[in-house]
């Protein structure tokens, strides 16, 4: 039988690991649209951690800002600029 504390820690650990992987993918991803989606995934699991740490007020503001508004602003900017990191430097391909 798993206790409530252990279960809470387990969820937090899983959320932390997912956020870590998402952070790594967001940093190394060259396609900026995908990077934004990884960043939103990271924020989503942060919301879980906030909720488990008993901060529902922060969780409530974190969902719309980090999943809705912040990716939207970044996506608008990507649309107006370039969609791939370093478009001009590596036009002939390269080791990815």
């Amino acid at each position, binding site marked *: 039988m798993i206790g409530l*504390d252990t279960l809470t820690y387990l969820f937090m650990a899983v959320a932390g690991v997912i956020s*870590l992987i998402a*952070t*790594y993918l967001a*940093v*190394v991803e060259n396609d900026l649209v995908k990077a934004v989606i990884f960043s939103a995934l990271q924020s989503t699991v942060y919301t879980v951690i906030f909720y488990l*740490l*008993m901060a*529902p*007020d922060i*969780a*409530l*503001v974190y*969902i*719309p*800002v980090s999943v*809705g*508004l912040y990716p*939207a*602003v970044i996506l*608008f*900017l990507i649309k*107006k600029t370039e969609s791939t990191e370093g478009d001009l430097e590596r036009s002939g391909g*390269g*080791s*990815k």
Partner: protein
Amino acid sequence: MRIKKLLVLGSLIVLVLTLSLAFTSGALGYYPLPLPNVRMLAYWYLNTTLNPNYPLFTAMSPEAVTAIVWDYRGLDTLFETAVFFLAIVGALALARGVPLRKASDSVSNGDNSRGLSLICKTATKLLIPLIIAVSASIALHGHLTPGGGFQGGSAAAIAPLLVLVIFSVFFLLDRGVSEKSMLTMRTAGLVGIYLTALAAVLIGMLTGLNAYVFQNQPKLNAPVGIPALFFNALISGTLFFFNVSEYLAVASGFTLALILLSIPEEIVKRFISGEVHE
């Protein structure tokens, strides 16, 4: 490229190991998280936030976070709001001189030709009332349950964002959600915050009693207070009005910024380069 990836991976691993070391060596104490016992300061807030036995200290709100944000530490929140709205003013200043209404007229070729598919549009039409209702409940119950003006306002801003992406910015402008109306709503919200902050002082001036700015419940030497109950419903004095005003101001502020961001680049360029005159 490979070195960059290894560097990123290595720094993440070092960060995680450092944090783990800090936690296991007792940086946050050896208590489990969340802490089983609250500290003295938290105990004081939890004990007074809704406690009619301490009429000089209570905020008359069961939601301690909102009580701290808008009553105990109200001035902090006022300046946070000011910072947010200065940022919006900056966005408005950048987009000055681009007449959105004219931009809307110059591309008016029917609503249905722009935006995503009919499925997306229908689903959005169903979702928008739900988003508005949820955000309003977050804001209006902010003094009773987790949530508040900023949370509700940023949730409400998702509705115009969906319309912007799935229909188009011109759909929104044609429906009256323009930068002018959003500016008016934002100003109304800010005036509401201003009046709520000064409410006790105004009552004090009228009745000749001593009162403070940002006062909610009666205090020592300042017997003026905003009633906590409205027809037997708990509104927690100023907290309800602060939440409603902040809700309007934040929702319209975010919508304003998103509208300015989503005006198509070529139209902005056309207006800036002077091809089209006002």
